[in-house]
């Protein structure tokens, strides 16, 4: 076989090696009691997306600092190796709880949870299927994105000068539709005549990492009259912030406070406290209080909210803020009901 050896084979082997690159976070498990480590698998976009995944990572870091729980993460990147990443973490003796970040994990985590009944699992943005029983060792964490989106929609409608606002979604899916629908209802609640221009980047998960296309959508919406655009598109949202800078218009971030991406051009961000959810779940796990089933975080328990701090205070007048607080109370008390579709 060595007769046919080409240097290129080494290159190809190296290729395979590199394309499987996985990043393990903290691998200092030695000396720690077995079964008390947390594992986490990232969503598309991965670590450093300045949004969803980073929020989850923040939760892990907090757990490490305050609870002394070590963690290990896998960044699977593209493709369908999510299930094997989950299995890899679940099969390690020292890991007691495994997180899947993102609705894409729903089916995979169901399978793995059945395979490892003595381990605990948690899935952020779990998409609940009423027809299916959730295994008792899964904590299915849901956020009421529609409530937070309703609030930023109302805010956009109060601030807009052109009477037209925009929305950019990543992948066309029921989860992102929840954002869009809540946002539109919020806009219409303030001003039924206000136009909402909507656009989706793609019908595949690639829609969450195509900032070039998102920028084009944003530029189109801005030039068609929208002056504030809200996005729920993960990494693609960076394209929106570029467009906002270029067009000198406003944008609304998602998942985490995205003010830093385009200071002065980010009106606010609809935040989901993914970090807190991760932290709380680990805490419950550590104190042996872990329970399976659906856990919903909404406005009431500060699971979703919009950012209002010293950075964006000058963009949001005080009367607008008080109006929003009033709406928030109405949502919590049930005076305003928001449809999810």
């Amino acid at each position, binding site marked *: 076989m060595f007769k046919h050896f080409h240097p290129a084979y080494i290159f190809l082997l190296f*290729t395979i090696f*590199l*394309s499987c690159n996985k990043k393990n976070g903290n691998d200092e498990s030695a000396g720690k009691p077995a079964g008390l480590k947390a594992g986490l698998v990232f969503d598309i976009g991965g670590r450093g997306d300045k949004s969803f995944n980073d929020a989850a990572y923040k939760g892990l870091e907090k757990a490490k600092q305050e609870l002394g729980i070590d963690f290990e993460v896998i960044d699977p*990147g593209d493709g369908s190796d999510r299930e094997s990443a989950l299995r890899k973490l679940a099969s390690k003796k020292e890991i007691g709880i495994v997180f899947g970040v993102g609705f894409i994990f729903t089916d995979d985590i169901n399978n793995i949870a059945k395979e490892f009944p003595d381990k605990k699992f948690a899935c952020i943005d779990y998409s609940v299927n009423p027809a299916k029983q959730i295994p008792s060792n899964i904590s299915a964490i849901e956020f009421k994105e529609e409530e937070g989106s309703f609030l930023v929609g109302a805010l956009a409608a109060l601030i807009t000068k052109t009477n037209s606002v925009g929305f950019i979604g990543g992948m066309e899916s029921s989860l992102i539709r929840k954002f869009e629908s809540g946002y539109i209802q919020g806009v219409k609640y303030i001003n039924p005549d206000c136009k909402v221009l909507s656009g989706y980047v793609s019908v595949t998960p690639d829609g969450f990492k195509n900032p*070039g296309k998102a*920028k084009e959508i944003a530029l189109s919406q801005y030039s068609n009259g929208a002056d504030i655009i809200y996005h729920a598109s993960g*990494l693609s949202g960076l394209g929106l912030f570029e467009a906002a800078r270029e067009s000198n218009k406003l944008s609304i971030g998602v998942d985490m406070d995205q003010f830093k991406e385009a200071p002065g051009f980010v009106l606010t961000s609809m935040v989901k406290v993914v970090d807190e959810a991760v932290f709380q779940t680990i805490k419950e796990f550590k104190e042996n209080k872990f329970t399976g089933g659906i856990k919903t975080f909404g406005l009431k328990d500060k699971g979703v909210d919009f950012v209002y701090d010293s950075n964006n205070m000058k963009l949001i007048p005080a009367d607008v803020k008080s109006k929003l607080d009033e709406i928030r109370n109405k949502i919590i008390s049930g005076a305003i009901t928001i449809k999810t579709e």
Partner: protein
Amino acid sequence: MDLISSILSITFLTQVFRMMTPYYFGANGANFSERGGVINISIEGFMNLSAFSFAMFGIISGNIFFSLLIAITINLIFSILFSWFTVKLKINQIIAGVGFNLFIAGLTKFLLMLIFGSSSNTHRFEGISDIDIFKKIPIIGGIVSDPLTLFCILLVFVSNFILYKTRFGLRLRSAGENPEAADTLGVRVRQYKFYGIMLSGILSALGGIWLASNQNSYSEGMIAGRGYIALAAMIIGKWKPVNIFFACLMFSAFEALEITLQISGTNIPTQLIQMLPYLITILVLIGFIGKTRPPAADGEAY
């Protein structure tokens, strides 16, 4: 009415040309390689690599011109490597192409983590700035003020001239059509294949650079299949620089149309519009729309 007026607007036209730019750089690059008889499906990877190196050196050095040169040079090195594998060592061109795509995807992600501590994106940097004087030109001002888009349009004529009016073009084409005959006439076939691949490396580099510059950062997977769309455009354009240009315009026009349709809130499903260019690609390949003939010795090692 609202929809028609927004499609006929200058903004729409500018957007079409803007989105065409990376496609044409990729497609035209791939064409030079295929004209020399080497199928180069690693355009996607080449664009990815140059986008990354442009952003990385742009951030580190702060000098756009320098990072532009470095990004092109790095791509040149990779394309020489690619030609060494495919022309000299005669490795299957498709497999080598896939290998390069995977290798570069892994390499960029690995370096991202290493240098920027993020598996998804770099910091922000200032990309190539527009030429302000050109902005005042009516109608096409928004198009030609982007230096790379302007270069892209000029490239249509330049590549057409190179392929059909120069000795280099004739020899390159002969290497892709009938290498044996060319060889007997004294053309250094392998050398010309090398040149073709190197040109594809340089041109696809510009495509990646445009994307990173337009985004003012690099993010993992930002090429998002544009390299493959470029290959489809090359096929629709029947391996002719001018036709390829119009094929790229068609792809970007459909994409812009999809965006505009979504905004206008019509009931036409956007997925249908998204699908159309690919349908046309298949129809072209089957032979419904004119005769398609790739270079005769395309994909064969010599």
